[in-house]
Structures are given as C-alpha cells and as structure tokens.
C-alpha cells in the first residue's frame, strides 16, 4: 500500500494543487507557506524563568502554537520515565518503533541485524528526544547517539537517566534553545551557555557546524512543530548524503481523530487532553512531499496498530493512524 502512495505522489508537482479544500486553513498555511529564510527568529521556549535572558516575541500566530506545545511538555516532563504515567503509550510503542528502525537501518547500512549491537559505528541523532526513551535503546544497540530537544527540562531528565547505566551514559544531549551541546564528561562549570534564538526545533549551531549524522530520527515530533517544511529541511541538513531520515507521526484522518484524539485523550485518558492538535497531523502524502522538497526520498512506510486485547503494538501496513516513514537523502 505504501508503494501505491509513492507512485501517486510522483504525479503531484505543484504544491498549490495539493491544497485540499477540506483542510483547515491553518494546516495548509502551516505546511506550504514559503516564508523567507531571513525571518526574525521565533520566540524562545515557554520556560523563561529557566533561562531568563530570553526575549519573548509574539509576532506570528504560528509561534504561539509552538509555545503551547512546549508548555504542554514542560508540565509533564518529570514523568518521562514513569512507564505508567502520561508517557505510557510511548513506552508501549517503543519496542515496535525500534523494530522498524532496526530492520530499515540495518538493511540500508548493510549491517547484520542478528547481532546484539547492530548499529556499531553509526552516528544517529534523535531529534526531539524528550527524556531519552528512544536514545537509550539506540545506544544499547551500539550507535553513537546525540539527543536534542527544545526543552531544557527534558534534556536534564534525559541526561540524568542515561547516566544511571554505563552503556547509555555515552549519549550526548543538546538543548536547542541554549544552543550548546553538553558532552557528558564535561564539567558543568566549564560551560558557557549561549542563548541563541533558534528559528526551528533543530539547533542552528549543529547545522552551522555542519555536523552530519548517518541517521536522523524524529519520532512523534513533527506534529508538534510550527513549520514542518522548515523542520524537514533542517533534518535534511543534518543528514549525510546517502544517509537515512526517519520520521513518525500521526495521520490526519477521520480514524485518527477518533483514535488519537477522542479515544486516547478523552475516553481512555492515555494522554493529557490537548496533547495533539488534529489539524497539525500530516497525511503520508503530505509528509512524503515535504520530505521530497528537502531532498529526502521516502523508501519505506509502515503503520503501528494497537491490539487492545494484548495491550501490545505491532507493525502493520495500516497507516491510517500512527505511521512511520523511512527515507534516504539524495547522495551527491
């Protein structure tokens, strides 16, 4: 089914044609607005008391969307590693996401999937790492992992938790707002914190330093980002030519509204109400398109389905709710 999607997308050229009249206006504007690169930077994150040097700008309607998102995550940051807390669905879904990553990355980089540390020698960046739920298993699988997140609270928690186990304490965590990357062994007092006003989720510093990674992974992030197109461009900038980019998100469909919003938030209380905005969801076609514009070709796509009887997630062809896309950057 995924391949049918991709051939359908081959026909789409002009983004204006893709504008579906059924889409809420905000979503369209969010996806396809061509804002010039020299835009003044977005307002910094929602926790000014933490780094009080930030200037608060409320210029565009889309920047307040970002503030709200960050505020939502800031409120529940302490419960990242509580497997029965608000992040329970993420913990439950984690093994399934990792299974997809393992199979696609091993195939792409020609690594043997039947060893305990198949990602040995690969440099991976986990964008929007949160508490490090994805970064730690990746490190255990042998990768050199860098985790980045916009919330300093998340980075602190991630670093703390990763330090508990010698295997995961090699993960490098960066906070995008502060702009600096902490190396785990560097003494706190030696750091100078630069408040760089970032225009995206991804640290400009990393991009400026032309730090590139073999695999750039952004799972369950793009639905919280103000400008997905810019986001994908930044992800692409971080990827080596010929490297891999993996994005997972929730589809914008009637079914996902019923499942991810109504059922998950209001009925089952899996997620705090307001975690997701249905209008921010992307359909697989849209995601493929904006990735294409960022020079990334989507090669594989899969869906996650939840079995309420066993309480387990599994990979499937059904991309109507949760889906994950694996793409490779055009090589030189």
């Amino acid at each position, binding site marked *: 089914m995924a391949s049918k999607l991709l051939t359908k997308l081959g026909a789409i050229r002009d983004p204006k044609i893709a504008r579906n009249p059924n889409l809420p206006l905000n979503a369209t504007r969010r996806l396809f607005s061509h804002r010039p690169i020299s835009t003044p930077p977005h307002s910094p994150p929602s926790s000014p008391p933490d780094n009080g040097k930030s200037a608060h700008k409320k210029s565009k309607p889309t920047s307040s969307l970002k503030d709200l998102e960050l505020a939502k995550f800031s409120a529940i940051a302490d419960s990242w590693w509580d*497997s029965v807390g608000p992040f329970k669905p993420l*913990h*439950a879904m*984690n*093994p399934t996401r*990792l*299974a997809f990553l*393992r199979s696609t990355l091993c195939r792409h980089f020609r690594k043997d*999937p*039947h*060893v*305990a540390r198949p990602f040995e020698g690969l440099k991976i960046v986990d964008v929007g790492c949160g508490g490090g739920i994805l970064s*730690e*298993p*990746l*490190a*255990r*699988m042998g990768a050199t992992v860098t985790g980045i997140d916009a919330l300093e609270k998340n980075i602190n928690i991630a670093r703390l938790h990763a*330090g*508990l*186990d*010698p295997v995961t304490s090699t993960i490098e965590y960066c906070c995008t707002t502060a702009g600096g990357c902490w190396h785990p062994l560097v003494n706190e007092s030696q750091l100078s914190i630069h408040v760089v006003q970032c225009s995206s989720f991804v640290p400009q510093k990393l991009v400026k330093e032309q730090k590139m990674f073999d695999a750039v992974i952004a799972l369950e992030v793009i639905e919280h980002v103000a400008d997905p197109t810019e986001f994908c461009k930044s992800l692409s900038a971080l990827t080596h030519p010929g490297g891999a980019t993996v994005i997972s998100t929730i589809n914008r469909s009637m079914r996902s509204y019923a499942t991810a919003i109504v059922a998950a938030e209001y009925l089952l209380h899996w997620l705090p109400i307001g975690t997701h905005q249905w209008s921010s969801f992307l359909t697989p076609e849209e995601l493929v398109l904006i990735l294409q514009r960022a020079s990334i070709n989507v090669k594989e796509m899969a869906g996650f389905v939840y079995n309420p009887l*066993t309480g387990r997630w599994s990979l499937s062809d059904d991309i109507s709710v949760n889906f994950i896309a694996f793409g490779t950057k055009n090589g030189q």
Partner: protein
Amino acid sequence: MNRAITRKLAAAATNAYQSKVLRKNLCGGANASAATSTQINNHIHEDKQSFTHTVHPYDIAIVGGGMVGMALACSLATTPLTKHLNVAIIDSNPALGSKVSIKKEDPPDPRVSTVTPATISLFKDVGAWQYVQQHRHAYFDKLQVWDYTGLGYTKYYAKDVNKDVLGCVVENKVLHSSLFSRVEDTDFQKTIHPSRLTLMSLHPSSSSTVESSSSTEASYVNGCLAKLELSDGSSLYAKLVVGADGAKSQVRQLAGFKTTGWNYSQNAVICTVEHSVENQCAWQRFLPGGPIALLPMGDKFSNIVWTMNPKEAADCKSMNEDDFVKAVNHALDYGYGPHPKSSLLASADMFSWLGGNLVISANDSFEVPPKVVKLASARMAFPLSLMHAKDYASRRVVLIGDAAHAVHPLAGQGVNLGFGDAFALSRIIAEGIAVGMDIGEVSLLKKYEAERKPANVTMMAILDGFQKAYSVDFGPLNILRAAAFHGAHHISPLKRSIISYASGEQRLPLFS
C-alpha cells in the same frame, strides 16, 4: 587454604568501599574477558587486607543449575542475539562444574522425566537432543489408562495424531548432562558459583551513599543491577536474576512473590524395575489411593511412579524387595478391582456419528501390563503438592520451572512446563536485546509472564481436576469416570485433542 585467583584486580580502594566490608573480604565475580569456557570461581581469604576490584557485573544470574536452569543457559548460548551474554550459574551442587560421564552399564536412575514431543523439538532446536540420544532413553508410542473399577479404559496411540511417538522417558541426569554438554560446546561465557544464595537486593537502600570508584557499585546504587550475596561470602551483580531453583525457591522467597497452592495428602514412591520382556508402552492405572504409572525406560527397564497416602508410602519404601515387587504387580493387575472389558465394535460405532476419522486405537483391546520381575534401584518417596506463584516476574527478577509452579506427576507434565518456561524466557530476552531494551525491565519480563502463565495455569487446573476426580470412590462418580474413559477412547476428535495437548503441540485444550 590458598587457591588461585583467576581474574584481574583493579587499582585503588576507596575508604567508603572498605567500610562496607563487614568481615573478611572475599572476592567474587569472574573476569568476563578471560572466560571462554567454564570457570569454577575460586576465592581467597585475606585476614588483614581487603581488596577492591572492578567486579564485572553479569548480564544474567541463573540461580539453580538443574534441568530447567541449564535449559535456559543452553538456549541463551545457542541463540545469536544472546550468545554474547555473560551468565553466572549459582548452584551448590559441587558436581555441577565437572563433566559427569554417564556409562551405559550404569543402573537406571529412578529419577526420570517424560519429555513430550514439544520438548523434544525444543531440545533439537538448541542441539542438545543428540546428546540425549547417546544415552539410555526410551520413546513410547502407546499409552493405556484405566482404573480399578474395571468399568472403562483408554488407549492412546501416537498414530492417532499421525506422529511417531507420544513422548520419551529419559533419566534426569541424562537430560541435565546433555544440556550442559551442549553449553560446553559453545563458547558461551558462563561462570559457575558452587554456592547457595543467601541475600538478594534489587532496590538499594537510600542510606547507602557510597562514593565508590567501582562503576558496578554505582550502577547497583542507581538501580541498574541486582546484588546477590552467596553463602560462601562472595557477592555478585547482575542485570537480571532468574530463579530456577525448584519448588522451595530461595529467589521466589527473597523477591517476595506470593504463592497459592495446597499439599496433596499423597506421597509418590519412585523406583526402577525390570521386566523379562521389553516394555514399549506407558501404563497408568488409577487406584483408590492414587495412580500408579509404569513408564518404559529401555533395556527392559521401567520406571514406577506410585502415588499413595504418606503412611502407605512409608510402608512401601521400607518393605523388602520381593514384597514390593508383588505389591506392584498386584496394583497393576488384579489388585483393587477387575480388568476392564475390551470394547466391542458396536460401541465404537455408537460414537462414529460425531465425525472425524475413527482412530485406530479405538479398536484395540485392553492389555495387561508386563509383569515386574525385580527391583532395579532404590525406592524414593517424596510429598506431592500443587503450587503456583501469583507473579512470575518483577523488576530484575523472574521465575521459571518449579520455582514458579509445581504440579502432580500424574500426567508427566511438570518438567515440560519448566522447559517451556526456559525456552520462552530465552526467546523473550533475545527479542528485548533486538530492540535495545534493558533485560531487567519489567515490561519485557511481563511479556514472558503473559505468555507462560495462561498455559501453565490451564495445565495445572486440568491436572488438579484429574487428581480430585480420581481420589473419590463413590458409585455415581465411578460411573462418570468410566463414561469419561469410554468417551476419550472412542470419540476420535476428543482423543486427538487430548493427545495433542498432552504432547505440548497445542497450547490450550480446545478443539482446533
């Protein structure tokens, strides 16, 4: 007594660590990098000095090196994703480390197990069955079950389900040494600690503020490792502790798992006997006091498992050999009641409307088991009970085998459930490692529990049901049981279902 140390010592000792040592410091743990084959862990006593060392933590500590514990080690050793793991086996049996050579002329041990075809195929998967075949073992393809009332009997044939065998009777020591030999074949890093577990600590106390140079100690304090203290004074750390230490599991007790269960007011007397002819069928007769089973072992030997009340068991154990042989023959033959009449063809037709092909055994007549000629081993007796742990797993601790469940031996299922546990746990651990999980994580271990618990509980319930049904001598109930015998014998789909379930091919006893 001085013994050689076979591992490295690290450099500096911090005072904080030394103060934690309460008495003579003994060095535990093994050097992971040096181990490519079995190492018997040796210790040195030092009165004055205390060593600090980088104790390399183990990935898994298997407490109990019996059949089920060794099956887990064997399975881990032969799976690509887990064969790199560093494993400690804790068992106070001093003979565990050394190669036990079993000779053909050895008299048959009375401790045997009936392995189901499902277990045989698991053994074949890990490559341990070839070792079993080198020693005495006996396949059987026929099973006859009847009771003392003489009202009915059932004969099961492997041909009924298009299989070659219903099971295989193997001495426990053969099963154990086969698994051990297979592990020795691989270069699996395992260390045997010939000691007993005394203390297990999964959650470090908040008062332990150790400023330690040992990263292992730090990991333990952080909750990443479990700490095990052994009776010889050594201690070791592991990411996951597996309790494979039998029905009186120390791990289960220390981890605080609650159990349910009850004692059957029955003891089992086991011994090996000899016949004048080869015995190739398994026999079980339900007597008023409990079932007596005669299991073929090969070479004209058979194993007897006779369940009876404790007083009679004591009598049986102490009476002289000839009397015992007479008692056994009496129990298998005309004792307590008549032979059942062979089924007539008419009664077979009665059930043919239920459909399904008629099984061949439905036409077979009742047979009398071969006479026992003499006793070939010592008699052993042990009490029987049912036990089930409410949970199999919690953080960093998991139970397999008899530590998790104990059943009545009347269907020969006990160790097969244990082997099922061991191989399932090994598979689950491999799946966890494949996605980079910490193997001591509760979610992973609960996955194992969710797979094994329903199967184990179902089997236990059925066996307990049988035990209760056959322990009452009451007219109407006897007739009901007889009807059950007839039904199982003649209703082919039911018989196939029973055989499949008992063979381990089917997980739950439903018609499939």
